[in-house]
C-alpha cells in the first residue's frame, strides 16, 4: 500500500493584477514505503508547487483541489490547520539551498529539536540526544548541534537540513532540488545519504529536480511534468529506453552524457503560459511529432504499458497519425 498518495491535485494562484494561474493541473501519484519517486521538469512546470501542495505549504493566494492521503488518511481537505499535525511527523521536507532554509540565529541542534517538542515526540535531554544521533546518522558529529548554520559549508548545511527533516520519524521525505547549489562531489555525497536513508529507514522519497540523470540514478520511478500536467510516468528504465511522450524523449536528447557521442539538441520554443486556457496538447507547439489532432484535443494520461502512462495522442491507436500516413504512402 502507498504511504503517500496524491489524487487529481490542482493548484491555482490568484495573480496580483487579476487572473488566475493554473499551476498544477490534475496531478496524481503515489509512493510506497522505501520507494524513491522523481518529479522532473523545467522551471515553471509546477513540480515544486505540487510538492509544496502535498504539505499545504502554499501562500494565501492559492486554491487547492484534490486529495492527499498518508496511509489512507486524508490530510489536505481540512486546510492549513488540519494539515499542521501531519507536517514533519508524516511528511517532512528538505528545501533547495539550505542556507536560507535554516534560521541563521538559532543553533542547528535547537532547530532539530524544535519540531520534536511541538509534536510531542521527544523533549528535554532525550530530544537533545536524539538530535545528536540524527546528526551522526547524516554524517556530522553530534557536537554540530551547538553550532550555527553559517559555520557550516553548503554540503554540511544540507546534511543538517536532512537531519532536521528526520526529527519526527516521517514516513515520507520530500526533497526539492536538494543538490542544486552544490558541487558534483558534494552532490554525490548527499545523494548517497538520501539513498541509504530510504534503504535503512524505509523512508519514501519524493525528489523534485530539473536534472534527469539525477532522477534516473536515484529513483525507481519518475513523473515527467510539463505545463502543470503529468506528461509521462513510469519506471525510470522505461522512461529512458521506451519514452512514450515526445517531451520525455526530447528532454533526454537535450541532456549531454559523458560519452560525448550522442547528439544533443535543445527543444525549440518555450513552455506555454498557464494563466490562460490551453487548447489542445500544451506541448504541441514544441513537439517534433505533432499532428492536426494535437491542436484540438488535450490528451489524457493513458496506460501505455505496465505502470507506464503517457499523455500523448501518438499512443492512441484510433487516431490517424502522420507516421500512419507516411507508412500508407
Amino acid at each position: 500500500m502507498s504511504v503517500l498518495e496524491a489524487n487529481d491535485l490542482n493548484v491555482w494562484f490568484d495573480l496580483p493584477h487579476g487572473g488566475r494561474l493554473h499551476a498544477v493541473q490534475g496531478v496524481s501519484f503515489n509512493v510506497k514505503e522505501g520507494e524513491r519517486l522523481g518529479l522532473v521538469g523545467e522551471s515553471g512546470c509546477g513540480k515544486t508547487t505540487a510538492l509544496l501542495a502535498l504539505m499545504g505549504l502554499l501562500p494565501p493566494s492559492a486554491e487547492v483541489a484534490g486529495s492527499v492521503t498518508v496511509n489512507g488518511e486524508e490530510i489536505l481537505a481540512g486546510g492549513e490547520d488540519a494539515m499542521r499535525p501531519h507536517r514533519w511527523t508524516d511528511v517532512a521536507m528538505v528545501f533547495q539551498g539550505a542556507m536560507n532554509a535554516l534560521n541563521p540565529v538559532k543553533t542547528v541542534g535547537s532547530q532539530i529539536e524544535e519540531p520534536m517538542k511541538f509534536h510531542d515526540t521527544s523533549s528535554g535531554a532525550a530530544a537533545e540526544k536524539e538530535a545528536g544521533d540524527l546528526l551522526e546518522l547524516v554524517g556530522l558529529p553530534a557536537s554540530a548541534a551547538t553550532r550555527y548554520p553559517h559555520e557550516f559549508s553548503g554540503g554540511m548545511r544540507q546534511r543538517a537540513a536532512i537531519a532536521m527533516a528526520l526529527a519526527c520519524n516521517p514516513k515520507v521525505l520530500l526533497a526539492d532540488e536538494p543538490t542544486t547549489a552544490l558541487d558534483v562531489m558534494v552532490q554525490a555525497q548527499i545523494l548517497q545519504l538520501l539513498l541509504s536513508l530510504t534503504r535503512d529507514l524505509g523512508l519514501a522519497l519524493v525528489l523534485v529536480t530539473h536534472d534527469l540523470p539525477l532522477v534516473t540514478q536515484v529513483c525507481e520511478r519518475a513523473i515527467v511534468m510539463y505545463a502543470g500536467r503529468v506528461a509521462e510516468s513510469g519506471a525510470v528504465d522505461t522512461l529512458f529506453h521506451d519514452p512514450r511522450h515526445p517531451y520525455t524523449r526530447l528532454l533526454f536528447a537535450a541532456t549531454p552524457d559523458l560519452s560525448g557521442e550522442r547528439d544533443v539538441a535543445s527543444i525549440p520554443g518555450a513552455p506555454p503560459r498557464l494563466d490562460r486556457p490551453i487548447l489542445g496538447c500544451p506541448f504541441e507547439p514544441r513537439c517534433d511529432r505533432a499532428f492536426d489532432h494535437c491542436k484540438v484535443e488535450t490528451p489524457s494520461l493513458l496506460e501505455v504499458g505496465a505502470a507506464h502512462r503517457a499523455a500523448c495522442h501518438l499512443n492512441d491507436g484510433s487516431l490517424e497519425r502522420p507516421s500512419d500516413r507516411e507508412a500508407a504512402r
Partner: protein
Amino acid sequence: MKSVEPALAEGTALVARPSSGGNEIVRVLKERRSALAGLVIVGFFVAMAVFGPALAPYSWTQQSGPVYAPPSSEHWLGTDDSGVDVLSEMLYGGRTSLIVGFAAAFVAMIVGGGIGVVAGYAGGGTDNALMRTTDYFLVIPDLVLMIVVATVFGPSLSHVILVIGLLLWTSTARIVRSQVKSIRERVYVRRARSLGASHRRIVAQHILPQVAPLLIATTVLTIAYAIFDESALAFLGVGVPGVSWGTMLERAFERTAMTQGAWWAFVPPGLAIGLVVIGCYLMGQAIEDALNPRLRVAHLSIKSWRFRTTPNVAEGDAS
C-alpha cells in the same frame, strides 16, 4: 556530432510580459493608491505655495480683525494674537516651509547621492573613508548641531537650508552606496568594464539610471524630515525670518494660544506640516517598498490557502 538545432531556436515564443518601459516611479504611482494619495497631497500644497499668496484674502503682516477671533465667514481660519488673518499667513508661510523642505532635501540628495555613488563605486579605501565620515555624521545629534550652527551663523533662509541639508544627507548616502555596490557587481557592469568603458560612462549609463528611483524615494522622505526640522528650528527661535508654518506654531505657543482656547492659531499649521509629511512618506515609502524584493513574499499570514471541495477544472480556467 552535435546536431544543428532548428533555425528559430527559442525565437518563436517570446515571454510576453507587459512592457513597462522601465520607469519604476510612474509604475508605482499607477499601481499603488497610497503613492498617488501622497502625490495628490504634496501636489496640493505645492500648488498652494505657488499660487497661495495671490489668493490670500488679507495681508499676512497687517492686522485685519480682532485678536484671536475664532473662524468666521470673514476669517475662515480665524485670526492670530495680533489680529492677522491665519489663512493668509498659512498661504504665505507654506511657501517658506516648502522652499526649505525641497531645497534642503535637494542639498541632501546632491551631497548624499554624490558621496554614496563615489563610495559605492570606488570601493576600497575611498569607500572606507567616506563611510567613516558618514558614521560620524550619523552620531551627531542633528537638531542640536542645527541649533548651534544656526545660532553661530545667524538665521537666514539660505543658512537654514544649508544647515538642514548638510545634516540630512547621511541616510541617503548609505542607501545609495549599498545599492551602487550591488549594481557595480552586476554582470552588465562588469562586462562594460571589461570592454574598457570609462568610469564616467559606466556611472552615467548603468549606475545612475538604476539608483535614480531609490534616490528619488529617499529624497522625498528627506523633504519630510527637512520640513520637520524647519519647524523645530523656528520653534527654538533660530529659524527663517518671516512667516512659516514653523514660526506660526512658535508664536501661538509663545502667546499661549492653547490655554486661551485659540486652537485655530496652531492647528492649521500643525496639520499642514503633518499632511505634507504624510504625503512625502506615502510616496517615498511606496517607491522604496516597490523596489524591495524582500517584501514580495510572505510565507506566513492570517489568511491561508483555500481548499476547493468540488474540483471543477473548467471553472478554474475560465476565470
